[in-house]
């Protein structure tokens, strides 16, 4: 076993040692709580052969390693989120020892407290909207057919070609407007929201085109209202297939970027 380091999963406050009971860290060691400066750091020991400068440089380029670490990091974060407010750290935040973690809690104390205040009593919900561009295009075509076409055969051909191109553009425009309108409607009903880049279907395997990938910060007490707001918006827009997931730990909202 090489020298060991301390991996920081998340920062919380008021955690007890038994709040992390049963949580397993990245290399199979139990997860621990370190207290300092009014904050609780959720940490675990990791070998520096794997998580030191050299190891990380090598391992971050190995997708199988990355996936396993990302999933385990997420599992610990979710485990802690069941127990209290938390701010997840970026993947692979590694220190040389416990003292160094506590020292850093002191340096970042007020920013971390503000981040925790922002997400306390709230969870992240993911809303993804998918459409079928072909369906939207077909609707556009049906509408175009009802319009009379003037001129001879050549003109009709050109008009048809032109309208095929226009229909594709129109469909893309309509799809993106649909995503925008759903995002905005939902954003009005919650504490905070963020748009994330749409995911590619080759990684997710989803069908159709993802026109919205958004995160919303929703109060625990507002979840019933939130889900019925989503239901109502979905009912108004039959072309959209909406995927609602949550509650998740507040990854997208526990930030210190505005400090």
């Amino acid at each position, binding site marked *: 076993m090489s020298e060991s380091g301390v991996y920081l999963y998340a920062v919380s406050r008021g955690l007890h040692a038994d709040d992390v009971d049963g949580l397993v860290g990245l290399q199979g060691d139990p997860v621990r709580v370190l207290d300092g400066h009014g904050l609780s750091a959720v940490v675990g020991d990791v070998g520096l052969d794997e998580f030191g400068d050299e190891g*990380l440089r090598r391992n971050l380029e190995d997708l199988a390693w990355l996936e396993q670490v990302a999933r385990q990091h997420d599992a610990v974060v979710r485990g802690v989120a069941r127990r209290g407010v938390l*701010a997840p750290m*970026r993947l692979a935040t590694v220190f040389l020892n416990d003292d160094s973690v506590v020292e850093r809690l002191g340096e970042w104390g007020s920013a971390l407290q503000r981040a925790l205040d922002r997400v306390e009593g709230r969870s992240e919900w993911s809303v993804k909207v998918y459409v079928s561009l072909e369906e939207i295009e077909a609707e556009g075509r049906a509408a175009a057919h009802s319009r009379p076409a003037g001129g001879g055969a050549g003109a009709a051909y050109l008009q048809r070609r032109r309208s095929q191109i226009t229909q594709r553009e129109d469909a893309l425009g309509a799809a993106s407007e649909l995503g925008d309108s759903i995002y905005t409607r939902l954003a009005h009903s919650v504490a905070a929201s963020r748009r994330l880049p749409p*995911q590619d279907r080759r*990684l997710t395997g989803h069908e159709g085109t993802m026109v919205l990938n958004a995160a919303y910060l929703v109060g625990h007490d507002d979840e019933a209202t939130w*889900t019925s707001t989503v239901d109502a918006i979905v*009912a108004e827009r039959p072309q959209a297939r*909406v995927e609602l997931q949550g509650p998740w730990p507040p*990854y997208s909202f526990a930030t210190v970027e505005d400090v």
Partner: protein
Amino acid sequence: MSQEPELVARRERPSPYSARPEPSNLADILERVLDKGIIIAGDIRVNLLDIELLTVKIRLLIVSVDKAAEMGIDWWKNDPMLSTSAQEVAEENRRLRERIEELESGAGEPGDE
């Protein structure tokens, strides 16, 4: 309360924070643990900027292969198109690294060795 459940595909409900370690797809997890989450410089200094770089690589990866399961080690290195982009990113990465070193030399001490 949960009328018309067929309209909205819901996972993970009603139990909050499913105890299963893999409730989300890989894209959901990676975009959050690599792209979100609080950045505090650890003692292992390599991680921050390499992760910035990695996030970009993941994006490139997502548009360059069919399935995550098919990816191997060095998945972008053998692709000239991706390598070129990766070099540009590395250049940007180096500039950022210098900038951060500059900032840090003015601010707090970088912890023990």
